[in-house]
């Protein structure tokens, strides 16, 4: 089983794991993954029905680029959408 790289997975999950938490979390995840690794191989039907890996992007956390979203804003102030205040009450 591949080692569990907490920093890399936490980056993908948009979580920060403190140095103090890492050891305990790594131990927990290793135990959980060892438990999950008892599953037998996937059958050919499931393999075939699954989305091909080529359809997935690489597992790399990237900075968010707000530019495409800002293009869609009806009205802008600096790099933010301008919206009416007090328009929604919960």
């Amino acid at each position: 089983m591949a080692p569990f790289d907490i920093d890399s997975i936490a980056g993908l999950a948009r979580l920060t794991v403190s140095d103090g938490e890492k050891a305990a979390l790594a131990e927990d995840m290793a135990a959980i993954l060892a438990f999950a690794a008892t599953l037998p191989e996937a059958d050919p039907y499931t393999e075939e029905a699954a989305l091909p890996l080529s359809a997935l992007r690489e597992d790399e956390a990237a900075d968010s680029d707000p530019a495409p979203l800002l293009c869609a804003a009806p009205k802008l102030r600096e790099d933010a959408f301008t919206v009416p205040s007090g328009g929604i009450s919960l």
Partner: protein
Amino acid sequence: MNGLIFQDIHALAAGLRRKDFSALELVRAHIDRIRSCEDTISALITRTEELALSRAAAADARLAGGDAPLLCGIPFVLKDNICTEGIPTTCASRMLADYIPPYSATVYARLQAAGAVLLGKGNMDEFSMGSSTENSAFYPTRNPLDISRVPGGSSGGPAAAVAAYEVPFALGSDTGGSIRQPAAFCGLVGMKPTYGTVSRHGLVAFASSLDQIGPLTRTVQDNAAVLSCISAPDGRDATANRTFAAAKDLFSGDIRGISVGLLRFPGDAADPAIRAAVESVAAVLADRGAQVREVRLPALSDALPAYYILSSAEASANLARYDGVRYGARAEGAASPDELFCSTRSTYFGPEVRRRILLGTYALSAGHRDAFYLRAQSAARRIRAAFAEIFATCDCLLCPTTPTVAFPAGEKSDPVSMYRGDLFTVPASLAGIPALSLPCGTADGLPVAAQLMAAEGNDGLLYRLAAAIEEVRI
């Protein structure tokens, strides 16, 4: 009026119609009970006393009109992951501590339309991740039958509220056993209906392919009545395409000719007292004319790991929406959007939620998807096929709901030992079939429960068998 709190829904409904008491008196009696119990049990996160009193007055007016539904005027609790317009819905998470939904879940709307009276929102494991209600971000709930023990989870608050006579019924949600396990620990009837029988619109998502709402009650007949009320196809949830309606002869006690498989689990680690109680249920069913035989389903040995991979994978996707931008809590002082996402999620999600998000992200990542996610999907498919095969020759399966009785608070600290407690409940979740837990005895003074499972859509059969078992009061 104190005796009112001990009555079941059908008795209360009859009393309201005879004008033995009013809905207002009934609601006040339950409010008094909540006030006297909550310091000890902590079943509720939010109480809705004022709203309840106004709804009770409306229920009295409707009852006076003479054509009120069965649940009119009956108090209830909702698990706090079911959206209630204008009332906080926290999922027991700091992330949603201040969230007030602008809309109501379909199940709440249906109960309101029936005139039932909401008394509060029940505590739970954060975002339904847990089996003891100790993962609530606010406080743990205690088991009313022994306050040194957990009430189960994740619907531990709703279950404790019913067991403590704070309300006659509650709605929970069940992803891998979260209705059935707390029902077992608190001595209640808990039903996870066939997937698609109850709308999930307004249920805060954990694992969407598994989540299902269902009732917790003190009797089988009450449970069927509540499910009948909340079940209907719903255009707001494309998977809600079934209706359950309790047939009149469901509780006749006649179970002659029904074939029941006494399910022997691979690696069955149930306590001997629990196994013995379930075997006594099998004997009762046989005495009453059911055909009982032992069955084995080897495919179920993969159910637990498959469940934890699939549910965590779905949770990691569903909980991506909590980013500090759209709703929920927001961490202060972030210098960039990415810092805002990371800081918010790390600050406001609790340890178990973060653990499962990490597990799910790992299982779905391109480098590990084949080793975990696809294998889990494949195992789930084999489990569904195994159930389909067994239900071709057998109407219903019987097994324990939990391997142990309610365990002491704080006893289980490592996640895998907590996960192993879901051995008997996760297979029905993966297969989408109905499963019902009902009390079938005691061990060490605590309730023991049996679980009944049937083929997809056969929810009524479970009630029929459960009613026959309940009649005998093992």
